């Protein structure tokens, strides 16, 4: 069968990174890839080119405003938003990986190929309401990530983290599958949008099985966004992963899971009145639990990566509050928040690479005094941490502003108060990062080690950090362009809300 140009157009954002991934695998056949500089350069170049091309292609689609489709794959504005989002995350990850794997002495082309396959899965996951395609996307990005977490096989805790992530993730995936199957059994269709209208027509909206199906699907999403109580894998997996991969997981997995959730719950099941309302109530309760547990646990971490993991859990809580508010403006806020969150979290993990922290060396102690030694990185760190804490005039503030505003506007004042208290608590552990960087002198031990080691050079990771800082600052000063021009159009034109 031959494809129409429009169908090709819908498939290209998947084909480009997939093709790139195959090329990288071919290059990585060479055994000396770690030592042969030009092969290494070619692999990273290819990977970067692949995500760059898909970024360029998607922004072009966005500009022209066309929303092509390939059967159940809708490359609409929301999917384009996702593709751009994931491409930026992947590009920052690739830049950071170059320096990080070099520092760790562990360079393998497969990591890049796996990353690119994950990109394919993520775009697929966020561009459909057909359950089978959705599940395909979920597995296509999950399996490479399981492998990536455990990629540094020399470290036992890396394998441990990867295994934990895999086992729990497999259970969540099966629950998700079960939910879809139940919905299919009751409605006779895998297309969730159609299923919702069929269930309404048949008067099955109050059927407990519908509720169970929806709840099981919700569980699958909540696992991926690491909401409490499905969060336990997060700190272990982040700690085990190489820094850039942890950053990528924290940002891209959470991002696409929320976007797919947007499509499924308010998007398709929104018409399923009682089920939608119940899901919103569940989300409200879990958001509270996520905010409280994530923030309180993050307070007591001494390892930066574990702190960032709990911080990423708590950010899932704020984003879930956006779903509780449930207005188009709140969903716009969620997407805006995700863009800023992408930059600040990729930046925060990128700092670890830029500062040259390898292996276990990721405690607050190891950061002491580094802000003054590397002023540009220190400045970026201040931008990321203050933005994560939601201090104006940085991007993170506007994300929280939009979500809390809608929350208050829809009468959830209590949840908004809880949200701001959670932000207050979070300010403490984000400040700890800055305290270590700026307010504490390096320990004598660290000074001695530093003088023994050659100076850290991480130009690409540094560049990635600066790009991230620029995005966070842009989110603070041209927030309306990002929110109204980018996020809002993805919601209104892509999701069809407020059309």
């Amino acid at each position, binding site marked *: 069968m031959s494809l129409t140009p429009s169908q090709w157009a819908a498939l290209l954002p998947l084909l480009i990174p997939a093709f790139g991934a195959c090329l990288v695998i071919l290059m990585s056949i060479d055994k000396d890839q770690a030592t042969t500089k030009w092969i290494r350069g070619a692999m990273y170049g290819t990977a970067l080119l692949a995500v760059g091309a898909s970024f360029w292609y998607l922004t072009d689609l966005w500009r022209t405003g066309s929303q092509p489709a390939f059967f159940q794959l809708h490359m609409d504005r929301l999917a384009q938003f996702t593709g751009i989002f994931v491409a930026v995350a992947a590009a920052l990850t690739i830049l950071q990986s170059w320096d990080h794997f070099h520092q760790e002495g562990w360079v393998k082309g497969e990591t890049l190929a796996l990353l690119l396959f994950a990109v394919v899965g993520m775009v697929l996951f966020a561009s459909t309401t057909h359950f089978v395609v959705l599940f395909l996307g979920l597995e296509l990005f999950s399996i490479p990530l399981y492998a990536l977490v455990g990629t540094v096989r020399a470290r036992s805790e890396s394998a441990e983290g990867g295994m934990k992530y895999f086992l729990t993730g497999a259970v969540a995936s099966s629950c998700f599958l079960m939910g879809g199957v139940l919905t299919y059994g009751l409605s006779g269709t895998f297309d969730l949008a159609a299923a919702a209208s069929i269930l309404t027509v048949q008067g099955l909206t109050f059927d407990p099985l519908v509720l169970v199906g929806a709840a099981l699907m919700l569980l699958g999403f909540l696992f991926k966004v690491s909401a409490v109580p499905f969060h336990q894998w997060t700190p272990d997996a982040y700690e085990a992963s190489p820094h850039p991969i942890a950053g990528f997981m924290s940002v891209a997995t959470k991002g696409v899971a929320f976007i797919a959730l947007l499509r499924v719950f308010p998007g398709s099941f929104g018409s399923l009145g009682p089920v939608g309302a119940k899901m919103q109530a569940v989300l409200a309760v879990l958001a509270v639990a996520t905010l409280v547990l994530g923030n309180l646990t993050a307070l007591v971490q001494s390892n930066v990566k574990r702190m960032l993991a709990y911080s990423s859990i708590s950010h899932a809580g704020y984003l879930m509050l956006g779903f509780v508010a449930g207005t188009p403006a709140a969903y716009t806020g969620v997407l805006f928040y995700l863009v800023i969150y992408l930059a600040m979290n990729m930046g925060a993990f990128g700092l670890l690479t830029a500062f040259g922290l390898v292996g276990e060396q990721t405690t607050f102690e190891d950061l002491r005094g580094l802000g003054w030694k590397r002023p540009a990185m220190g400045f970026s760190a201040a931008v990321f941490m203050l933005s994560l804490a939601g201090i*104006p005039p940085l991007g993170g503030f506007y994300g929280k502003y939009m979500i809390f505003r809608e929350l208050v506007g829809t009468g959830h*004042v209590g949840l908004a108060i809880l949200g*701001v208290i959670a932000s207050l608590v979070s300010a403490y552990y984000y400040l700890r990062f800055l305290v270590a960087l700026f307010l504490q002198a390096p320990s004598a031990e660290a000074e001695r080690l530093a003088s023994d080691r050659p100076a850290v050079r991480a130009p690409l990771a540094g560049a990635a950090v600066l790009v991230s800082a620029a995005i966070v600052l842009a989110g603070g000063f041209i927030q*309306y362009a990002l929110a109204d021009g980018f996020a809002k159009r993805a919601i209104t034109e892509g999701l069809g809300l407020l059309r």
Partner: protein
Amino acid sequence: MTWLNLHPLTFLVFAPTVLGFLLMALPHALGKLARLLGFLGALAIFVLSLAWLLGHAPAAGGTVMAERTPWFTLVGLPVDYALAVDGLNLWLVLLTTFLVPLTMLGTWNSLKDRLGTFAALFLLLETGMLGALVAQDLFVFYLFWEAMLIPMYFMIGVWGGDERRYAANKFFLYTLSGSLLWLVALLYLANKAGGFNPAVMAQAASALPFGVQGWLFIAFAVAFAIKVPLFPLHTWLPDAHVQAPTAGSVILAGVLLKLGGYGFIRFAIPMFPQAAMHYAKPIALLSVIAIVYGALVAMVQRDIKKLVAYSSVSHMGFVMLGLASMTVIGTQGAMLQMLNHGISTGALFLLVGMLYDRAHTRMIADFGGVAVKMPIFTTFFMIVTLSSIGLPLTNGFVGEFWILNGTFLSGFQWGRLYACLATSGVVLGAVYMLWMFMRVFWGPENKDEDSGTHHLHSDLNAREIAVMLPVVVLIVWMGVHPKTFVAASETPVTALLQEVKAPAPRTFILTPAVHEASEAHEAVGAAGAHAPEAPTAHEVHQ
């Protein structure tokens, strides 16, 4: 130059930031150059602000300068980029632009490292303070209000004393806690009003049930009261003041605390007049407690800087008492007292800093007989001390007198008692300041090898005298002719209080429409619809 003609306030507010980022980019080795450039920049801002703000004749209604343009609409709610200088903030803006270069000069040699970054943060802080003072849109105000925390956090945390990390975190989180809850109230009201224009928000607030208005007022008041700080929300202040470097303490006392009082008079009281009247009495009670408690705690301090910090609690209690009196004279007194406290306490912190730079101790017991070794320093310290006590002919007297007068005439149930209790605070102020002065400066010279007096080798140099002279001039000027400094705020304050006490329906006279509203209300006033007959500040002065 047309851009500058259209946006003078934008220039004043953001020029320090631009300069600050340039200084931040300078290499470490050029720290001394950065310090000089920072000082010259701040001085230029001061001269410009003086020339522009006092050079323009105020428009009808007291607005000296204003800018208003739609800034952005973020998913629905519009935010206006609205700045204005009017009678309420004119002198606070000038106080800020004055104190920044003065402090930079006064603490020229206090810091040894990272001079460029410090100057840069100082300038960023100036942007935050000026922006918060001139903002006429609550969203913009909130942005500047919060953004101020960041440079101050680093100033305390990096260059502060031994407990600097604890003090910096406490300062940051304490202030943030108030403003985050305030943010929820702000969002609630903005959703009702469809924007952040204070006048529109006030209108929306008046349509709400009184109970809701009360909660909203409390949310506003707590955020501002933390900044003031009003008892019992003052506990961050001694830590922050004592641990901050001298420059940080001066600005903290001189300007940041004023923003709390300013927030009350600019936003909290006019936006929720009914609730403000309702809660005026508890606020007055807390103010009286702050006055007496602050003074008593100051009395027993052994560290001069900590003593000055607690004296701030007491003095700012006077400001809050004046505002809570809801009389023209009391409010005008509070406006003047804010300036007084900025000048006197700022100068006290500078002087303590000068002493500390020489002796490396601030303990009262380590001194004695300093007058013998540093006569010029002692003279300046005496003048500032007397101003802080409120000796007639110095600035402190006028402000406190008006506030006490306003409280006495407020018509509260316990108003007269509050005035009497607060007056004891003036006496206690004399006790702790003079007792400290006596122990540090008079008596036989402390000849102990380890004592602070022993390490004093030089009196004030020309630079330090140059810093103190304008302060002394201002102290006397404000004491002898306070009208210069309160004339601008008389009209808006009078109009505001008429508005607050007027029966519904209200017309919401928030700036820049002060003038029309005040005219509208003169008719009401003539008909005798509003009570207490307090003399205006002007009359009392004469």
